[in-house]
């Protein structure tokens, strides 16, 4: 033991530490300053940034003893006695806070910048924040926030009124709806007070660890845990034999072993779990577990997986390695191509992609009274967690409580079970709380990815550009377990003719089991992949026909009266053509590009559509409860996940709108299966629609009850009353909201109202009915600069228009649009999850590069509000659509710059330059 004497946020601190501890760990776990986050633990991401003697450092690998005698400043020390630091206030106001997990690190690095440079421009900010990552991608807003804060600090005497420069124009707002309102959790997120799962600690808490597979495919011959159990400090070692209930979990197919027993099928498979007094001991215990394996051949791609001679990885569906064959058929494909005057046919490949949410998976299990068990976790589907935990533990669901902590990003990657069941098993076995926190390495190896795909796409058109036929064959690598692979690949298939009216369509898609990590939900849900193929073919078609790419898309774009490739009639809310018009208007107003140096600039265009909601005949519902209080406040409750997208803001706004309350008087309680009704999965861009509707109807129900009370007091019919600004009014008379609540209680009326909202019914694929109740649309144009000396590609500007039905909150929408563009820019240019024969090469964040602030283009964003009659105030989903067209817009721009077509993602500057130099027309 050593003593570390230093100053933290101005306070002298003396703390006993191990000499090998790192500063972030001392701050978080010894001093309880959990605002400092550990996201990568390898000095890559900047989430752990603190200032040591005024200099910013990555505290996750900063030996704590190095800080002996130093002055350390953490996020908890940033605010001033009289309120927030201007950086904190500006981050909130500009919408630069989403999931919030990166926020403390970004703020500390920004503070360091302003300490050295009181007047930074965008370039200075990009240099300073280059390695301080935000996966939600709020980089544009951050730059605005930092510049504003700098101005406030330079001119403290002046009153500053800053606008939000990147805010899109929207329809006239209602009382609350339509306004750029800031997040209810923002202050907690900028001060470090926000609590994610690893920020919870309990007395007597143990630390868990998971033994992962040693091979990507192997038979388990034996497991011997005796040596691990004998290690001092180890409290339990569990294997499949200790799983009392269902040996498998899974969202749709129950095919994923809780703990492997017969085989391991990928490197992330869990073979045994340990709980010990410390993380260190738990890790050491893993090394003492002896597992005998018999290695099996590795199936590493979906095309091989389908061959009859290939070894079966997982027979979860009874069809060998075929998880699902998805077939989409419309019209007559042969007749369609017979009419075609031009045919474009190409093969496209995309790799696995990693969500890289900033917060690695973490869960805490603890036993409650009466034999109940509680799991604290940041999950995208709390009620599904409860079901799967209960099944594995052989408990009724009533005995399980899942309590949501804040979530440091999800993007689809926190829908499947991670450590939830394991901590519950360990806590139950030992009777003490058990925390399992995954390292970044473990997170990268374990959790489901975006499907790698091979897409063969044949597009036929008339000479005037009218599409007549589209034929696609898609192979999707769904990895070792089903996860949501079936649904993801279904979406890839049903969107594989693009947002266009194509009379003859044939699509066959094969979702395959392999020995790669499972592939599941990831923002875009399969459409990201097929849109790359569709929009590349469309662009090639335009060039071949000598048509303007805007014109070709306008000619074929889905509009009311058209049918989708599944035969669904588009009845309303199809704003694609307006999106195209807005983007075209901006792009065509740009000055003509004159390329005179080795840096070549060019524009590229792409369009996309994406369903809102589960669709395909799945019951799609959400329940929300609204309770009103005598202090004039209300609370809205549902189990739906806030993963950074801003759901609590939307729920509070809707509740405030319906009850006529100021927004600040509505609290939001999310994701506690004991206290909040089921909002269903946070997936498919559905929460604003389904939980938004649930909250709206619950609030309306509550209002009707209050109206009855008020109508007697005000002597007026209930339907003549108006609810506004905290008062219920009629003809110049008014009653404060709190007064009405009080009276309602005296009258013994209910003060809470639950509504279970059922979205419009959908029909399964193949039935030609409405497979989805709505679609969002987008058009995007990207201006790139290609360095013809190196093949490097930079995105300078993105013009985007997104049809989201109705803008409920333009600030939150801007965050979703800009974040979506950044994520898909990574999909095109920076990211690739690499697996070699089942072994993960990208097993550290140092090898998996998400876009940083330095990649951030100028973004010009339009919102198209083509309302959907069933949505709350006309709104539909936004979370995914914004991220889909960016990749093909960039790759089409590359073609326009140099004449080389990108057929394989991500763009490889090496292959691109060599293709340019050798005169090749594509990179395969």
């Amino acid at each position, binding site marked *: 033991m*050593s003593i570390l004497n230093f100053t933290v946020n101005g306070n002298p601190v003396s703390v006993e530490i*191990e*000499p*090998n501890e790192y500063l972030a760990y001392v701050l978080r776990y010894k001093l309880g300053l959990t605002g400092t986050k550990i996201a990568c*633990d*390898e*000095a890559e991401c*900047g989430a752990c*940034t603190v200032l040591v003697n005024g*200099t*910013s*450092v*990555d505290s996750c*690998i*900063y*030996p704590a*003893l*190095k800080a*002996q005698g130093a002055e350390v400043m953490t996020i908890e020390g940033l605010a001033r006695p009289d309120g927030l630091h201007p950086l904190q206030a500006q981050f909130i106001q500009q919408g630069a806070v989403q999931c919030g997990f990166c926020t403390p690190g970004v703020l500390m*690095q920004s503070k*360091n910048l302003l300490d050295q440079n009181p007047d930074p421009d965008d370039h200075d900010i990009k*240099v*300073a924040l*280059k*390695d*301080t990552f935000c996966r939600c991608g709020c980089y544009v807003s951050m730059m605005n926030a930092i510049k504003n804060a700098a101005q406030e600090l330079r001119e403290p005497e002046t009153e500053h009124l800053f606008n939000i420069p990147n805010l899109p124009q929207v329809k006239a707002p209602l009382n609350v709806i339509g306004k750029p309102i800031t997040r209810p959790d923002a202050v907690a997120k900028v001060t470090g007070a926000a609590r994610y799962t690893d920020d919870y600690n309990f007395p007597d808490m143990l630390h868990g660890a998971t033994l992962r597979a040693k091979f990507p495919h192997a038979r388990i011959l034996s497991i011997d845990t005796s040596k691990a159990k004998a290690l001092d400090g180890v409290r339990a070692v569990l294997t499949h034999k200790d799983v009392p209930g269902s040996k498998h979990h899974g969202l749709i197919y129950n095919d994923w072993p809780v703990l492997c027993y017969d085989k391991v099928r990928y490197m992330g498979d869990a073979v045994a779990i340990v709980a010990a007094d410390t993380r*260190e001991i738990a*890790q050491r215990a893993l090394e003492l577990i002896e597992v005998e394996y018999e290695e099996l051949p590795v199936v590493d791609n979906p095309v091989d997986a389908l061959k009859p001679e290939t070894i079966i990885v997982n027979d979860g569906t009874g069809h060998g390695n075929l998880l699902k064959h998805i077939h989409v058929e419309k019209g007559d494909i042969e007749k369609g191509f017979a009419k075609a005057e031009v045919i474009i046919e190409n093969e496209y490949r995309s790799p696995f992609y990693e969500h890289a949410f900033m917060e690695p998976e973490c869960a805490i299990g603890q036993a409650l009274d009466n034999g109940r068990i509680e799991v604290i976790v940041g999950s995208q589907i709390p009620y599904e967690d409860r079901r799967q935990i209960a099944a594995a533990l052989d408990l009724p669901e009533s005995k399980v409580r899942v309590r949501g902590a804040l979530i440091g990003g999800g993007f689809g990657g926190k829908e499947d079970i991670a450590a939830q069941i394991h901590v519950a098993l360990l806590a139950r076995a030992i009777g003490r709380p058990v925390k399992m926190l995954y390292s970044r*390495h473990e997170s990268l190896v374990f959790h489901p990815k975006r499907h790698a795909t091979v897409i063969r796409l044949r597009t036929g058109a008339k000479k005037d550009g009218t599409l007549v036929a589209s034929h696609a064959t898609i192979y999707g690598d769904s990895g070792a377990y089903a996860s949501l692979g079936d649904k993801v690949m279904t979406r890839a298939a049903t969107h594989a003719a693009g947002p266009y009216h194509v009379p003859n369509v044939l699509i066959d898609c094969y979702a395959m089991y392999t020995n790669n990590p499972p592939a599941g939900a990831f923002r875009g849900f399969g459409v990201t992949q097929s849109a790359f193929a569709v929009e590349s073919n469309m662009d090639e078609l335009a060039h071949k026909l000598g048509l303007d790419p805007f014109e070709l898309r306008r000619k074929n774009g889905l509009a009311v009266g058209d049918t989708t490739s599944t035969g669904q009639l588009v009845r309303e809310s199809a704003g694609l053509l307006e999106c195209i018009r807005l983007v075209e208007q901006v792009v065509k107003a740009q000055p003509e590009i004159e390329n005179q140096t080795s840096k070549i600039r060019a524009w590229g265009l792409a369009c996309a559509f994406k369903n809102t909601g589960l669709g395909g005949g799945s019951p799609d519902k959400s329940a929300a409860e609204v309770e009103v209080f005598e202090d004039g406040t209300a609370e809205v409750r549902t189990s739906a996940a806030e993963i950074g997208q801003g759901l609590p803001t939307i729920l509070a706004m809707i509740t405030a709108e319906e009850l006529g309350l100021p927004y600040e008087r509505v609290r939001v309680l999310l994701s506690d299966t004991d206290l909040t009704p089921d909002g269903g999965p946070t997936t498919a861009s559905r929460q604003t629609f389904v939980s938004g509707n649930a909250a709206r109807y619950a609030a309306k129900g509550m209002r009707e009850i209050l109206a009855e009370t008020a109508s007697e007091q005000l002597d007026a019919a209930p339907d003549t009353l108006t609810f506004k600004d905290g008062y219920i009014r009629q003809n110049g008379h008014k009653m404060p909201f709190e007064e009405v609540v009080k009276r309602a209680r005296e009258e013994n009326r209910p003060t809470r109202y639950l509504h279970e909202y059922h979205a419009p019914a959908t029909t399964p694929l193949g039935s030609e009915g409405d497979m989805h109740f709505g679609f969002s649309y987008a058009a995007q144009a990207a201006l790139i600069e290609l360095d013809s*000396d*190196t*093949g*490097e590609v930079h995105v300078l500007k993105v013009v985007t228009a997104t049809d989201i039905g109705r803008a409920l909150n333009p600030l939150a929408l801007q965050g979703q649009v800009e974040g979506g563009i950044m994520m898909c820019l990574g999909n095109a*240019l*920076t*990211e*690739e999850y*690499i697996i070699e024969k089942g072994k993960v*090469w*990208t*097993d*550290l964040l*140092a*090898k998996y*590069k998400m876009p940083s602030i330095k*990649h951030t283009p100028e973004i010009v964003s339009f919102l198209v509000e083509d309302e959907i009659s069933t949505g709350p105030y006309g709104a539909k989903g936004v979370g995914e659509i914004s991220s889909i067209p960016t990749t093909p817009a960039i790759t089409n721009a590359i073609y326009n710059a140099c004449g080389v077509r990108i057929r394989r993602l*991500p763009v*490889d*500057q*090496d292959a691109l*330059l*060599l293709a340019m*130099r050798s005169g090749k027309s594509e990179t395969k």
Partner: protein
Amino acid sequence: MKVFDNYHLPTTVVQALELLAQYEGRARVVAGGTDLLVDTQAEYYEGRRPHFDALIDVTGIAGAGEIRARDEYIEIGCGVTHTQIVASPLIQKHAAALAEACSVVGGPQVRNVATLCGNVAHALPAADGTVALMILDAEAAVARQSRSGTDSPDWVPLAALFQGPGKSAVDSTRELITALRFRALGAREASAFSRVMRPQGVALPILGMATRVRLSALDIHARIEDVAISAGPVAPVPYRASAVEEFLRGKTADQPVLQEAAELLVANAHPRTSAHRATKEYRFELLPMLLQQTLRAALERAAQSA
């Protein structure tokens, strides 16, 4: 996972060497630690179990954090960070290539703690700082304990420290680099650095290059009196393009000369394909471009360096 047990912060070189001696090879020197501590973590996940009884942090040694001019040399102590180098007017003026190279290493938080001496001890042939130091004919002071006690450090040519990728002649369990030095560039003399990265995968350069020139007069068309060119990675150790240097010496840098120099570089360098990073063919395409780019920049600066 913990890769070390103890952490020491000696304040003199003698103390540091004594500590290393006490641990008999089971301790090693650390400076910023950004490479060492992250690399050992990666090794751990590869199944190896790196472990040190102690780390001996040399950044607290008196004077180690200084950049100083001594005689005709500039000396950089073993605690000097990349951030300090980038910000140093002395280095900006007399070794611009080094400032440029250090400015692109990692992000600010890493540059704030990562030292140049530590980077050299890591012995990667393509390390940006190393590529720049090579054209400055830098030397390293290596301190070690001998039977008679601590000798005053020898100045060793930088190139002699490199034995292969990641393999240094400096045994960090017994020796330490206390400083680096190089001759400050003077009148009609200048240097430049540039590199190409890829956006995916590991943060190692695809190709980095540095050049230094001395002109016969303050004129970009004057004769090249002296020239140095280094690139990485084109060999397992840092590379000096001596054939190209020889060709350029005494010539005037007009376009045909630059063109011929580039061809000579391509003929002499032997870059390889490295998985998930770059192909050999791509590196060959970059060599002439980087040579022209860095030579032009160095020539322009030299012509203005009165």
